[in-house]
């Protein structure tokens, strides 16, 4: 991608369209964070393409002063794949929801990840279908009563990180709508990653699933319930910054530095670049009440990106071929003169 020196401010990325999400919707903060991130990233404004499906979250492109495409429900992944493969020089951002991306769009989701197309995917997870007014989604917790599950759902939800890893994901990060700064920095890392970067953003829908992430965001306890991972840094968290994640023979556990003989050096150091997905999966799957929820870049493994490989194959063949135009092709092989 053509890189340019940063010369924008967030406002440059605001479009002239009125933002139409409910007051208090988590989407506002995410929009804000994306505009900040775009201002910081080294791309030209005209090189951004923001592609979404259908959903409240998918209204996103209208509010961004970039090239934007509000497509059809579930297909943002496939359309974004086409955009990026067609022109690897673009910085392509896919905006999707838990319904758009994981229900109807589930197949494109796992296949874009498998191919490792150089896309940045923002999955707004509010555990509900917002736009259609409150039906359960593939991330809705078992038992929840919604418009279409009056007696509670009987479906096991996906864990986004686990699905990403199952589909051979090279990058998975998690962020939170209440933390604009963290979203911004996470998106910058997503941009830097070569391949499909999946960023799950826990988002609050004030209308249909209000406080669905309340356990995590609870002001009182959030330091104890949120673990911010950084590559190369120890997995320390807590109000007193004295808790950490350790590895035991049964898997991960939470320990307190200074208790039971635990020293700071016993705390795991985060390695996002490890190819084996096992620890990343454990980290992505941590949930309360026994664990904090992990945020930040959980996995970022270097592999070839599909779009680059495609471009390279075309270039290689073109370097070798003696055919320069369709005239050559048409006249190739067996022909005869009349």
């Amino acid at each position, binding site marked *: 991608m053509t890189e340019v020196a940063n010369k924008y401010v967030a406002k440059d990325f605001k*479009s002239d*369209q009125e933002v139409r999400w409910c007051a208090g919707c988590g989407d506002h903060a995410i929009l804000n964070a994306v505009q900040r991130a775009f201002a910081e990233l080294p791309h*030209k*404004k*005209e*090189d*951004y*393409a923001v*592609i979404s499906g*259908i959903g409240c979250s998918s209204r996103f*492109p*209208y509010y*961004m*002063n*970039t*090239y*934007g*495409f*509000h*497509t*059809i429900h579930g*297909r943002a992944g*496939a*359309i*974004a*794949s*086409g*955009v*990026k*493969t*067609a*022109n690897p*020089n*673009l910085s392509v951002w896919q905006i999707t929801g838990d319904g758009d991306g994981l229900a109807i769009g589930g*197949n*494109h989701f796992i*296949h874009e990840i498998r191919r490792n197309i150089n896309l940045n995917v923002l999955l707004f997870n509010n555990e509900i279908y917002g736009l259609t007014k409150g039906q359960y989604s593939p991330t809705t917790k078992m038992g929840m009563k919604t418009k279409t599950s009056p007696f509670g759902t009987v479906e096991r939800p996906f864990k986004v990180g686990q699905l990403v890893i199952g589909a051979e994901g090279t990058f998975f990060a998690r962020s939170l709508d209440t933390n604009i700064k963290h979203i911004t920095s996470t998106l910058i890392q997503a941009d830097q990653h070569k391949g499909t970067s999946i960023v799950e953003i826990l988002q609050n829908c004030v209308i249909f699933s209000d406080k669905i992430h309340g356990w995590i965001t609870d002001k009182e306890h959030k330091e104890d319930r949120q673990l911010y991972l950084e590559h190369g840094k120890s997995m320390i968290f807590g109000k007193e910054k004295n808790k950490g994640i350790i590895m035991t023979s049964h898997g991960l556990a939470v320990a307190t530095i200074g208790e039971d003989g635990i020293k700071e050096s016993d705390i795991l150091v985060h390695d996002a670049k490890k190819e084996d997905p096992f620890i990343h999966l454990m980290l992505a799957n941590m949930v309360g009440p026994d664990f904090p929820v992990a945020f930040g870049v959980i996995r970022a493994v270097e592999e070839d990106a599909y779009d680059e490989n*495609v471009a390279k*194959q*075309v270039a290689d*063949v*073109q370097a070798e*071929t003696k*055919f320069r*135009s*369709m*005239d050559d*092709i*048409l*006249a190739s*092989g*067996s*022909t*005869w*003169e*009349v």
Partner: protein
Amino acid sequence: MDKQAKVVDEIVIRFSGDSGDGMQLTGTLFSDASALFGNDVSTFPDYPAEIRAPQGTVGGVSGFQVHFGHSEIHTPGDYADVLVAMNPAALKANARWIKNGGTVIFDKDSVTEKTLKKAEFTTEDPVKELHLDGHNVIYAPISTLTQEALKDTGMDKKSILRSKNMFALGICYYIFDRPLNFTEAYFEKKFAKKPQIIEANKRVLKEGFNYAANIQALPSYKIEPATQENGLYRSISGNQATAWGLLAAAEKANLKLFCGSYPITPATEILMYLSQRKDMGAITFQAEDEIAGICTAIGASFAGKFAVTTTSGPGLALKTEAAGLAVITELPLVIVDVQRGGPSTGLPTKTEQADLMQALYARNGESPLPVIAASSPSDCFDWAFEAGRIALEHMTPVILLTDGYIANGTSPMKIKKMADMPTIKNRIAKANDENYQPYRRVDKELLIREWAIPGTEGLEHRIGGLEKMAVNGNVSYIPENHEVMSHERDARVKQVAVNIPDIKITGDSEGDLLVVGWGSTKGHLEDSVSQMRAEGKKVSFVNFNYINPLPKNTADVFKGFKNIVVAEINLGQFVSYLRMQFTDFKFHQYNKIQGLPFTVDELVGEFNKIMEEN
């Protein structure tokens, strides 16, 4: 070869055998040799849906028909002058396709208790049981002589017998006076690294040829090279021609091609041919399904490529929602549908014209787009090019219909020079154009919006599937705007007619009967009309390639005839479409739906009946 060759106009030969007998290759080689010799050729492969159907059964028979001659050839022919049958099952499956007095070349070594049983014969003489004894039957000991020819090569029996199709081919080359050198050259290229195989094939081919010469069982036919336009020719299948026509359109529009597709019979080869063209800068994206196929193409179109997606009927069904997105966003896109027998999975390897209504109407809401159809293997090149031209010049998705019959069949194609083909004017907007607005109609007559491609400075904008305000392209729920935009979308497609030629009549512009067809039935319909005109009947013919919109002079053409009959390989879709457009005419219809093309015979019979009864 001092025999007297009988000169004839045209010949139909059908190769048939077990799926494993290599009949498709044999037929192709014969067809190529004939084309290279200068004949006009039309072919029709006909094989079972299974990769390998059970050996020796009638269901497992694979056939390949070649029609060649010294004047123009429009169809692969109805009935065979010569049938090559490699086993009893092949004989049985094809008995009814032999012309009265035709010739049968039959491998007499293939008759065993087992093969007779598998083909469900009840007697020991398959020829007699099928009442073929009136025909000119050559009982050739093909297996034995093939083994004999190769006995000292050290090859095992199975490998040896794999060459017996070349023996049969050799017989045919003798009979029709074809030169062997083209085919020998093919062996040399194909098996460059296996000299033993080259030698074996050459030897068996020659043995077959010699055997036929030796038995002098039937006169050799001679067909002069066809009286075609001068030029360089090649043999091409419909799918290959489609792929190359699309590539030619990309080149003339100065764009790179992007194809997002999912494999499906009988369309897969288009994707295959395009995937070979990385040298032309073409990108093929084999998607996870048909929806992703069209969606990646829509994404690529948004990003400035000449985007196409290729499929067959069931795949088109999956693409219709996304096709609507391309309609409302007015993005250029070619959707190729190689029709096959339906409904549902239906008859996947057989031909049919039953996706017309699907192409025209299978989208939610009022969602019009241009539809065109190709008529022969080689003209798939021109129609694919034309689909690209319309898509790019009119900023619209276009559906191109071909079908299994022309997609798999081959015909000779006169090679065009790219310099002689029309330039395609694309509608790309210029950087920093302050007048740019997403739905501004830069051509007021054609109602075309501009293509502002991501990466272009100063043209950042948003498009999408929600209704958009005229000109500025913002989301709009204003009732009157929706009506305006609905009419504009409708008018945009109607205005495609501005740039398409009038339809041409074959025959007189007035008469008793106008035969109307569309797409791949052209050859058969044309031949049947020629035959009737030769008998002095006042019959003419028009073939539609532009389906939506129809050519401007359509009603004028219809006016000249007492009767109009629309013939299709379906239950009457085009005739219904004509009835809703032209309420002043009565249309007769003739339909066949057997997974097979028409035969000229049946058409002539049917048309005569209509003329008598009306």
